[in-house]
């Protein structure tokens, strides 16, 4: 047996732009997506979904479907007992939150279009789909409440039994919390002698739209029931199975194999997962369900969908004095696993980087007969950032100064860190001045302002707008004690284990569950440095509850800042366990040992042993000190004391054609401070992708329902995901203020781009049009909305009216979006 030598030359892995370990299989098609899994005897499911937003189920006739070729069984809610389980809400945000039970299959009433009413199991996916078309369901339509504006009136109820559409009211008040003054007094005072800005912003409904449609496989053969799912949260899913079906965790193994994106959209315990689990157990056969894209858009949870009523008070010269937020948040038909909590995550972020002396946040969560909503990249923080960054531009316009000047006047100065905010959070580090200076230089800020002035002076039909977003966010979810104080049902620690193999290779087990983030690469870099082993000799194992037994999975920009720190601690324990063994084998005193250059060495000599050599020695165990176990493997659990606060300055230049309303992105520059960087290549990828998702909210994406509650943007033909031709290349850079709450000094980066970019883009569009009297354009800023804003002085109107169903008689059966004359057959 030969031990692997320590790295010949000690170079730091952390900070290197390592190419990803993950890519070899992904670029050659050697992938294990859940839908690729085929097991002997496997059956396939198809769902029968409600076409109505709200209806009573008066009858289900499955006889024709059961006679269809290849069909094993057709089941409705009545065919299951409580072992089917339920979909859980893990975060009741108030003690009196109204939380209707969410069965995986509707029994007597459907509450949104797309809800499952029956399921077919058949020999092939095609046979199942064919038979699902033959299931006859009789519905008696009930009045449906679709929009948030209507729902808060409580006239039509999404769940009549509840007596109201209101689920929970969550309030934070700085005067009550003792973190600051009374916001009403601040506003009253500004009304008489200052500036009061009142705005209503709409966060349109978005769809996470991960590229891999969700898929679940359950194999009930063998002692453990094995579930493969396209999920971000295998550990939480296993808990939910156990907690709601009566099957103990020890009998359940959940595997998240290759998972094709998530963005929060796969942070869910889904009805489909529960149904697959139940039917596999019932039939004793492996079962698979893979959704179509249209089903995914219809029934996988949506994101955002809030109306924000905002009041900002300031002195006449633009010093902010108070901020009041009144938020209505659309839950959809059920409170999803974190559903009501998403807007609460924004509660601490409306004050952002600014020193508000008084703050109040009121959030009313509301039911509608629409698809349930939950986390989508940023979850609560993009909404908050959008509101405050739009308001700061409005304040600058009111005072008559450059929007950067009003920000600088109000932001936390570098020397004021650590800084405890009006929302009660302590920001540990940051340097807004440095990030802004760098971004301005990269952008050519002054030159673009000059060009803007020229275009304005010349009445150029194409106006130039400059948008700013000096964002911060809280991420690294999350300190367990804080989650407990917010009534969240779980914790926020992360677990890691470091194992040594006999040949000196290292296996790293993490409770984080990657779905595109590059954990295998970044975590290898961290451990390689810590243990002095080669990058190639580290294998990262994850996403399988039988291998990574403990974990809280991946979301909220937590994997590196929480999971990475757990890894560091586990690796350090390995070193500590190896130390007395090294001393013994080198015949030295433990006190003389030091870990340098990736080896345990005897101080003052050239004698030393690498972790690989020690691992081999421990495997043989021929010569260990008395009382020392033959095992270097170590584990650690890290629970952060605080959140993590990335920040940055994003600058966007938009050209707006005032004659057509068309907008065009000219330049986008950002300088993010995400602390120390493990792998700059991966970080750049996270920033680019985040930016485009945030830009897409500003310009393109919206989930639109018609008045009856039908999702009319229910396919990729209608839901406008940006293409390469819609987007541009970006200029990104970084400043570095290391985080003080993890030893690596890292901050989260997964959500930063999305959180920051939306207001930068809308601020740019509005900035271009401000001389025309425009002070808002509703998202997404379509050419029609921009044109209306210019010509009608409105913010551009709703999408709903313009997006009638394609086959609606009112539009000649062709809809009136993206249709040219003459295509009606």
């Amino acid at each position, binding site marked *: 047996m030969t031990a692997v030598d320590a790295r010949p030359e000690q170079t730091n892995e952390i900070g290197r732009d390592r*190419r990803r370990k993950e890519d070899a299989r992904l670029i050659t098609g050697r992938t294990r997506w859940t839908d690729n899994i085929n097991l002997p005897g496997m059956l396939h499911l198809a769902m029968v979904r409600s076409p109505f937003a709200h209806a009573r189920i008066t009858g289900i006739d499955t006889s024709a479907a059961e006679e269809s070729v290849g069909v094993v069984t057709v089941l409705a809610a009545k065919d299951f007992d409580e072992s089917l389980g339920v979909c859980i809400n893990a975060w009741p945000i108030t003690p009196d939150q109204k939380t209707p039970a969410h069965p995986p299959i509707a029994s007597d009433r459907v509450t949104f279009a797309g809800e499952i009413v029956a399921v077919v199991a058949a020999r092939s996916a095609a046979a199942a789909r064919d038979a699902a078309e033959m299931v006859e369901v009789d519905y008696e339509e009930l009045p449906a409440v679709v929009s948030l504006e209507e729902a808060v009136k409580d006239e039509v109820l999404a769940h009549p039994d509840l007596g109201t559409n209101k689920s929970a009211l969550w309030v934070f008040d700085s005067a009550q919390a003792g973190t600051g003054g009374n916001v009403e007094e601040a506003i009253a005072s500004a009304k008489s002698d200052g500036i009061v800005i009142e705005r209503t912003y709409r966060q349109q409904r978005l769809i996470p739209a991960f590229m891999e449609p969700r898929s679940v496989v359950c194999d009930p053969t063998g002692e453990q029931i094995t579930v493969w799912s396209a999920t971000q949260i295998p550990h939480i899913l296993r808990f939910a199975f156990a907690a709601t079906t009566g099957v103990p965790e020890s009998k359940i193994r959940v595997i998240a194999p290759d998972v094709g994106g998530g963005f929060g959209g796969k942070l869910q315990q889904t009805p489909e997962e529960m149904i697959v689990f139940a039917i596999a157990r019932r039939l004793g056969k492996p079962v698979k369900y893979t959704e179509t894209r249209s089903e995914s858009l219809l029934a996988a949870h949506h994101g955002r969908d809030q109306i924000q009523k905002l009041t900002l008070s300031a002195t006449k010269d633009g010093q902010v004095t108070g901020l009041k937020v009144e938020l209505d948040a659309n839950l959809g038909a059920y409170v999803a696993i974190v559903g009501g909590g998403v807007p609460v995550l924004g509660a601490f972020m409306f004050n952002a980087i600014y020193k508000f002396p008084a703050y109040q946040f009121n959030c009313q969560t509301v039911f509608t007969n629409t698809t349930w909503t939950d986390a989508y990249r940023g979850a609560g923080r993009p909404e908050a950032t959008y509101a405050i960054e739009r308001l700061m531009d409005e304040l600058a316009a009111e005072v008559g100064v450059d929007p950067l000047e009003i920000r600088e006047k109000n932001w936390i100065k570098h020397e004021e860190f650590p800084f405890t905010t009006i929302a009660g959070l302590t920001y540990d580090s940051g340097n807004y001045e440095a990030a802004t200076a760098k971004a301005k230089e990269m952008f050519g800020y002054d030159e673009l302002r000059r060009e803007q002035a020229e275009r304005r002076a010349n009445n150029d039909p194409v106006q130039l707008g400059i948008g700013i977003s000096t964002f911060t966010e809280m991420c690294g979810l999350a300190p367990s004690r804080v989650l407990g104080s917010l009534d969240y049902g779980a914790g926020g620690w992360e677990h890691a284990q470091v194992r040594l193999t006999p040949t000196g290779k290292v296996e790293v087990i993490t409770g984080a569950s990657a779905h595109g983030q590059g954990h295998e690469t970044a975590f290898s870099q961290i451990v390689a440095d810590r243990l002095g082993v080669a990058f190639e000799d580290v294998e990262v194992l994850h996403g399988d509850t039988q291998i990574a037994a403990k974990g809280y999975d991946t979301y909220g920009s937590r994997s590196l800042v929480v999971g990475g720190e757990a890894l560091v601690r586990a690796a350090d324990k390995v070193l500590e366990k190896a130390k007395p063994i090294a001393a013994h084998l080198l015949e030295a005193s433990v006190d003389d040992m030091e870990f340098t250059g990736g080896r345990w060495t005897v101080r003052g000599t050239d004698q030393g042993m690498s972790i690989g050599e020690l691992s081999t020695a421990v495997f043989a165990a021929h010569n260990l000190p008395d009382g020392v176990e033959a095992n270097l493997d170590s584990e650690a659990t890290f629970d952060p004391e605080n959140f993590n606060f990335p920040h940055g300055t994003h600058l966007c230049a938009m050209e707006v054609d005032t004659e057509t309303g068309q907008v065009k992105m000219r330049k986008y520059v950002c300088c993010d401070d995400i602390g120390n960087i493990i792998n700059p290549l991966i970080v750049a990828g996270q920033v680019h992708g985040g930016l485009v998702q945030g830009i897409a909210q500003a310009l393109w994406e919206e989930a639109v329902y018609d008045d009856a509650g039908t999702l009319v943007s229910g396919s990729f033909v209608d839901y406008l995901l940006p293409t390469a031709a819609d987007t541009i290349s970006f200029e990104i850079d970084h400043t570095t203020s290391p985080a003080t709450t993890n030893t690596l000094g890292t901050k989260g980066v997964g959500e930063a781009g999305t959180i920051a970019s939306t207001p930068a883009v809308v601020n740019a569009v509005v900035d271009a049009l401000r001389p025309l009297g425009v002070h808002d354009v509703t998202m997404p800023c379509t050419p029609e909305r921009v044109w209306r804003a210019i010509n009608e002085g409105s913010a551009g109107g709703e999408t709903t009216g313009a997006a009638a169903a394609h086959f609606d008689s009112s539009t000649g059966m062709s809809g009136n979006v993206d249709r040219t004359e003459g295509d009606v057959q």
Partner: protein
Amino acid sequence: MARISMRVDGMKVTDDIEPRTLLVQYLREGLGKTGTVIGCDTSNCGACTVHLDGDSVKSCNVLAVQADGCEVTTIEGLADTVETDLHPMQEAFRECHGLQCGFCTPGMIMQTVDLLKRNPQPTEDEIREGIEGNLCRCTGYHNIVRAVQQAAGTEVNAL
């Protein structure tokens, strides 16, 4: 049932299939070519892109019977052997971090290989238009564009 014969990634195959079978279904379910994936049901996303007689097609938009007598190349047949002898486009995607979750990647690589065949020295705009039919949700396209530039040997954008 209809009988079809074709050559897929170098292998001759003959099968009896339901006439409604899509090429992508035949590749995945009939031949186990699971490297090619299905991302939508409206021919928008391009994740299932393969080469049919050398030209890129969305294999969800072709019936398997239409490929009768044709030569099909999937992501699994692009390199001579897996792990070594990668196609330059595969290398470029890895080198430029042109993928994250990797789900769109097989289709994206097959499409960009076709793009460079038609236009060996594309401008950035031509690259962006050339991959307009392929959706990616992770990368924001920035690094995909760089990967194509690198494979084309043109000037590569900054990271």
